[in-house]
């Protein structure tokens, strides 16, 4: 009978290990959630991306709406292009006059992209109400940001060295 008790305890041990592994997978590494959910893509060019990395978050007023999926250098223009994946539930939400800026959370925190929603021209608003332009129309007609569209209004990351350089330059002029 002791053997049976031991076997039950070994079973409990294995179950505990599996629970701990699941905790690590779901709670700590967020394996279950990664890549989950429909998204649409946006592009943006920056002069300088600072410390932005793939998987950095895109936030609107602090709410995470998407992630940076890829960062690469534009072949001809030689400036960084950032590819964003925005959750589909925010489709037809952000006007195409929205702007992006690279911000830092806290003093030493990681960098993220802040999306500042823009405005919609009154005549476009009337157009949307009359017929659904955004469903299948080329995106130039749609007053919202749609899949593949490029956000033109971008603000680069703050680079401390540049700031200090500017400051010294200004001081020198006085």
């Amino acid at each position, binding site marked *: 009978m002791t*053997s049976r008790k*031991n*076997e039950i*305890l*070994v079973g*409990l*041990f*294995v179950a*505990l*290990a599996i*629970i*701990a*592994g699941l*905790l*690590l*997978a779901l*709670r*700590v*590494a*967020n*394996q279950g*959630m*990664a890549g989950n959910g429909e998204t649409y893509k946006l592009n943006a060019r920056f002069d300088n991306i600072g410390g932005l990395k793939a*998987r950095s*978050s895109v936030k609107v007023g602090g709410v995470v709406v998407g992630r940076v999926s890829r960062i690469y250098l534009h072949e001809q223009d030689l400036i960084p292009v950032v590819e964003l994946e925005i959750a589909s539930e925010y489709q037809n939400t952000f006007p195409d006059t929205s702007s992006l800026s690279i911000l830092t*959370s*806290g*003093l*030493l*925190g990681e960098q993220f992209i802040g999306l500042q929603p823009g405005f919609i021209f009154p005549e476009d608003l009337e157009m949307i109400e009359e017929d659904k332009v955004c469903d299948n129309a080329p995106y130039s007609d749609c007053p919202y940001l749609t899949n593949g569209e490029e956000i033109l209004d971008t603000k680069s990351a703050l680079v401390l060295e540049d700031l200090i350089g500017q400051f010294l330059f200004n001081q020198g002029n006085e």
Partner: protein
Amino acid sequence: MEILQRLGRNTIDTFASIGAASLMLYGALIAIPKWKNIRLTVEQMYVVGVQSLLIILVSGLFIGMVMALQGYTILVNYGAEGSLGPMVALSILRELGPVVTALLFAGRAGSALTAEIGLMKATEQLSSLEMMAVDPLRRIVSPRFWAGVISMPMLAIIFSAVGILGGHLVGVDWLGVDAGSYWSIMQSTVDWNEDVINGVIKALVFAVVIVWIALFKGYSCIPTSEGISKATTETVVYASLAILGLDFVLTALMFGIS
């Protein structure tokens, strides 16, 4: 002349014991427990794994708690206490989980294995098994080897999970770090393959080394009470040194070159 002879004898002895240890490992490895013998391995998993559980749970909890406490006092100076989660999680998953579990495992289970097999040898149980045409490698060594190799990574996973929960207990519940940022920044920082799986691989390597050293030291000890005590001490010392040395090599291989 005397010195040269001693040097030569030591070298030959060293290589002979490495050879004997490799032969024993080979014997244990090819004797993968058959289905009808699985009971022997499960019994050993009780001795090696379940009985090590308490020390692993308690030390995991306290190491997580102390990591959170130390990390908080430094990070709060920079207003970066939101980074407490990834700091605790990464250092436990990558380093402390596998290494501390391995050190405790060597002390708790490795020494017990050496002493048990050494005493079996001293009381000539191993010879009697051979007399009965039972291969002691198959019957005694192999189940213990596989039980250790299976149990130790599971213990390391449990250690990591409990440690992160301990960090949560101190960081979030006592010191008031935001629970949302503790988990969410941890989730965006910790990578499944890079951090969790690499930690488990480390634990697996340590397990093979510990159990191998423990079994060989027991199997080859001088069959006297003094010999057994020496073999047990050597197991803990050699296993701990091997763990710490290998940990550096593995870390360099896994995280150093990127």
